[in-house]
């Protein structure tokens, strides 16, 4: 197995690593870069717990190769807060009890942020379909949708 040398940007920081050709971006983030926020829930793109953004585009990092990150901008949950200032989504998730066990929360935050960055005023249906790629087994999604609605409202106020 030959290794690939990759130069990329993660949450705004320049990063370099060596990875196996068949290593996923998820494996690289978790095992080589110590960014364990993205989780492996299924490994096959069905649960969204590994969600990250690549050049602003929401993807499942378990279905992206570490090698493909070359020259791209990767965004993970660890980059959502600005220092000690939580993003409105993070605040609303906490206020609305939109997490119980919390394993799906990083993926939901990345996906919800991508959704709101694209569509700042989504309807309930748009939120539900926009987040259909993120499984939650604890909450039944009700409080998650309410938290996203509340965050969107706060973000629109500016």
């Amino acid at each position, binding site marked *: 197995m030959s290794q690939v040398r990759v130069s990329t940007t993660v949450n705004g920081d320049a990063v370099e690593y060596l990875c196996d050709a068949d290593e996923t971006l998820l494996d690289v983030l978790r095992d080589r870069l110590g960014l364990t926020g993205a989780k492996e829930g299924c*490994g096959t793109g069905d649960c969204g717990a590994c969600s990250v953004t690549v050049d602003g585009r929401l993807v499942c990092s378990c279905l992206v190769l570490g090698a493909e990150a070359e020259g791209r901008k990767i965004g993970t*949950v660890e980059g959502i807060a600005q220092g000690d200032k939580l993003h409105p989504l993070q605040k609303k998730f906490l206020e609305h009890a939109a997490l119980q066990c919390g394993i799906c929360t990083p993926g939901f935050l990345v996906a919800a942020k991508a959704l709101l960055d694209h569509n700042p005023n989504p309807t*309930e249906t748009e939120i*539900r379909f926009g987040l259909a790629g993120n499984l939650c087994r*604890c909450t039944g999604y009700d409080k998650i*949708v309410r938290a996203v609605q509340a965050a969107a409202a706060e973000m629109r106020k500016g």
Partner: protein
Amino acid sequence: MPLDPNLDPASHKFNVVGTRPVRPDGIDKVTGRAKFGADAVAPGMLHGAILRSPHAHARIKSIDVSKAAKLPGVKAIVTRDDFKEREPSLRDILWNVMARDKVFYDGHAVAAVAATSASIARKALKLIKVDYQVLPHVTDVDEAMKPGAPLLHDDMITAGVDPAPKKSSNVAYRHEFGRGDVEQGFKQADVIVERRFKTEATHQGYIEPHACLANVGPDGQGELWVCTQGHYMIRNTCAALLGMNVAKLRVTPSEIGGGFGGKTTVFIEPVALALSRKANRPVKLVMSREEVFRATGPTAASSMDIKIGVRKDGRITAAQADIRFTGGPFVGSLVDMGAMSAFAAYDLENSKAVGHDVVSNRPKLAAYRAPSAPMVAFGVESVLDELARKIGMDPIDFRLKNAAKEGTQSSYGPKYNRIGLIECLEAAKRHPNYTAPLGPNQGRGMAAGFWFNFGGQTAVSLNVHIDGTVALTVGTVDIGGSRASMCQIAAEELGVSYEVVRTVTADTSSLGYNDITEGSRTTFSTGMATIEAARDCIGKLCGRAAKIWGIPPEAVVWEKGYAKPAGANAGNFEPLSLADIAKQAATTGGPIAGHSEINAEGAGVSFAVHLCDAEVDKETGRALVKRYTVIQDAGKAIHPSYVEGQYQGGAAQGIGWAINEGYIYGKDGRLQNPGFLDYRVPVCSDLPMIDTVIVEVPNPGHPYGVRGVGETSIVPPLAAVANAISAAAGVRLTEIPMSPPVVLKAIESNGRAK
């Protein structure tokens, strides 16, 4: 610890209990910092991988690991030869952790390796040669009971039958519960409905696969980091299986990414420890999603015949259930709990519930949120729905006519204390979801549900720090937000604010034994222990104040966070806060702490009523839930947001179970859908908002009246959804999941029958 006689939870003004503060583990969980099972690493760590049977039923003739052992990077291999049968009571667990003579299901563990990388470990598995003698298999519960079915155990003689059968079979146990005379009861009925129901096995579907990091040294001391609902159970079970000294194994629970009962036993942990011990290096073992579905603990699959008779005025005269569960290859499908819960919501003179515990070639079941009750409630509440229609009675009025209440002799034994079923039924009747108009192709269903709830062994330690802040150390894993609730309870008792208390779940070396976080026991038991520990601490704080003031301890009272002289006679002293007293701890007797080590009793049963509006596309059979309401008795809601969360989560799981989730077995006995693509849990767009009503009928067995809430919410949905779909489709559904082909077939058969 009973309801505080000076405290009427209905009118008592709590300061912190009943509010909705942000949970203490919140920031970590929204920033990705929280550490779950697979997030730990250790220097020199190896990667473990498990080889699993591709056959549903086979004898293992031999296992040859020689080639795998030679692969560079492989540091340890374990098979059945590495696990001595030490403890008869753990035999089934051991046989499940690693197959011995036979493999009993597709995915059964056969061997394991630890290697320097995950890919080397996977390569090594491919080099292990297992010689199987494939045997005929059976996965269906009714098929497994038929004479001539493939036998899993040559020596299985059905227990609970007198005289005992002479021939072995796949029926491990027969249970019976009930009272009165059902034959007579049916004679008194004006209308009788009898139906057969079938439900397929489902999985808890937690998003986090099982994961652990084991570290065992040659001196027998070990550390285990693991996602689990019960780290003390893990410690005790693994120590017993590996012949380790219990005190020498320290288990630290990680944050857990969902359990719902599926993480209340061991699967990979003894294997990881055995590999680590052999290699003398840390071993990380993480299950893949496919392994989770094939080889952890789904529910039982069921088949049941329910027969209920009523008089025209709505009184049930007799209720009977014959329930058949299969939960894998060993006894313990929990059909006894199913039989006990079947008629628990009703005041019946004549009831009979028989449960058959049947083995089959499926993975060994584990609990799933009120295990056994959802399936049986599906059958019973569907028949009740049909009876209500037949006698022209409103379904809620029909339940009210027969509802159990305080003093009712339950169908499974005990007499009920104060319970909240009637309050839930009345709240349901008043709820807008019950009377809102329905659209085309829509139907409405309701169902009631019951769960026992449990107490259990609990130990808690409450320490006061020098600045007056409080460290609460508990031994129950937080799976739903209980740390927040414990902070609230401690703050309430001590008379301080929520922010002053920090709750930590400790490892097994730090506290006495704590039972698993299951049975909806945490807020009840750990809460009770926290109250006791806080009151113990208050006694000590008052004693210290007394010392400082030079007055007798009886002359000191605790009020709103301060020690105060009991009256003018006690002396004129300024009140002392926690910080004031703690600063002087060294000179007044040392560290200040309160303790509780209990076996919590008095858990109150809880009831729920669910309302469901469903829409059916009659041309395709596809059903969607359009509106859903959960009404459940919590006794006393410590943190209402997290109580609502339990209601909504259980309902969502029940909806998934009702409509699209289910294990699909091929003719070869192999699981065909071991992944989230074809094991179809509800996605965000599948569900509406789930409304909740928290009913509070205090549990007389708890100081604040708390009842467990985590499980009851999954009991009514199968029936509520089935009753709604049956109403919308115009035909009674009796098979779960009610997937589109099933619903379409029922609609078409009904159309032809007309």
